[in-house]
């Protein structure tokens, strides 16, 4: 049980750390797919199968494809794929901020007395989830639908607007 968790953690953290430190943008994006698959494996380990499949569909499928499209649309030559190294001061400051946050969070987690249930994982079937979503949570589902529609329309408007906007629209 714990050994599987440690393996999954090594997969997630290793691929994420390597992806965040690589120079090549395409390699980073593909390694992050591996990291998201590792997170889906964590959900499976914890007994949340539906969330694991949603993670695979949304992150490993959709978000990674959007990222790859954005990478390919925002380059002019092959050399653009390898990012120029960040300034040393910026890199050191970022890593220091991350490390300090990691230290604070680790101390907080280790010093808190967290009670855990001795029993097995709570089981939740897809049928229960569906009843929950169309029953008590139906307002939230509608709000999420509105958010997704508005956000995707906004994304289309942002990405499609031209620099000399309005000129073509004039009659």
């Amino acid at each position, binding site marked *: 049980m*714990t050994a599987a*968790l*440690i393996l999954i*953690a090594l997969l*997630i953290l290793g691929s*994420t750390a390597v992806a*965040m430190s690589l120079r090549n943008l395409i390699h*980073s*994006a593909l390694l*992050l797919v591996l990291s*998201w698959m590792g*997170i889906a494996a*964590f*959900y499976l380990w*914890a007994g*949340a199968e539906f*969330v694991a499949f*949603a*993670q695979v569909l949304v*992150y490993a499928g*959709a*978000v990674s494809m*959007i*990222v790859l499209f954005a*990478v390919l*649309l925002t380059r*002019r030559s092959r050399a653009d794929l390898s*990012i*120029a190294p*960040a300034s040393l001061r*910026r*890199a050191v*400051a*970022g*890593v220091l*901020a*991350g*490390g300090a946050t*990691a230290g604070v*969070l*680790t101390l907080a*987690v280790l010093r*808190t007395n*967290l009670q*855990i*249930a001795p029993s097995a994982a*709570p089981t*939740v079937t897809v049928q*229960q*989830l569906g009843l*929950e*979503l169309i029953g008590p949570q139906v307002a939230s589902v509608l709000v999420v639908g509105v*958010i*997704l529609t508005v*956000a995707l329309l*906004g*994304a289309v408007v*942002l*990405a499609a607007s*031209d620099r000399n906007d309005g000129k073509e629209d004039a009659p």
Partner: protein
Amino acid sequence: MNTLQLCLLISSALFCIGLAGALSRTNTILVLLGIELMLNAANLNFIAFWRFNPAPLPATGVIFVIFAIAVAAAEAAVGLALVIAIYRHQQNIRLQDATRLKG
């Protein structure tokens, strides 16, 4: 250290890798990916607390994570559309060069 604390430590480490990446990289797409990683770390926490809750509620954590994933997908789409808009205006996506609004 029990299993819940191990899960929380994993998600803290993931959060901090995402934070360090978002702060230290200069490429806008990588900054956005760092933010996505931080959101994923929060989702790991939801699932871990749902899994090890002493008085389990049937579907709370799972429902929360489903909504968080939906909002994160919308955020990723809008963020990458912004990246493309920035690229159109200044022909590259370095964060340091996007200083047109600087006073």
